[in-house]
């Protein structure tokens, strides 16, 4: 896993309210898209099987997302 500071900087540079893919070591932003499908398709095109996908929120801050 990346040093947390590197991961945080990568996430801070990523688009908000989007789907993103990080390299397996979480040091590099390798794809972004408006949907999971779009990001997955871009990873297919890159031949990347190991990326880690995240959904970014509308803004960064404490999570308070319990659904029920």
């Amino acid at each position, binding site marked *: 896993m990346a040093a947390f500071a590197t991961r945080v900087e990568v996430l801070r540079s990523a688009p908000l309210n989007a789907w993103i893919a990080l390299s397996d070591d979480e040091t590099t932003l390798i794809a972004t898209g408006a949907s*999971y*499908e779009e990001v997955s398709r871009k990873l297919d095109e890159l031949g990347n099987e190991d*990326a*880690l996908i995240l959904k970014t929120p509308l*803004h960064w801050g404490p*999570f308070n*997302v*319990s*659904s029920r």
Partner: protein
Amino acid sequence: MKPLQVSYKAFPDQSGVSLFSPVLSVQVALPAQNAPRTRKFEAIVDSGATRCTFHADIARHLGIDLKTCQTEQTTGISGAETTYLSELVLCIPGGPVTITASFKEQLPVAGLLGMNGFFERFVVTFVGGGQYFTLQRIDKT
């Protein structure tokens, strides 16, 4: 078996510091033989969530037609919302399990790992001072 130790993941906040949350990389699939799994994605380990809940985009990727799913009204921090229920295979440490998951359009993250489907299968220990959590699988896999 020795508990699995998982470090909290760091996220940015608006004031320039880092926030740490218990997060697990998971995959999901349709409950059918040889169904392809999604890619790895991050889900928050959330004891406040009744069900495992995933963003509706994940359902669309898997080919689940949300219009045909049973719905459920959930009561969340930010109010009531309709969620869509579907059987799903959740790939977690110790082996995959079939769960009833909910899908939600406005989820701000990719997924939540909640009480039904996730916590019921583990002893989960949050070690806030150590910035990690441990998972000890307790169900039969």
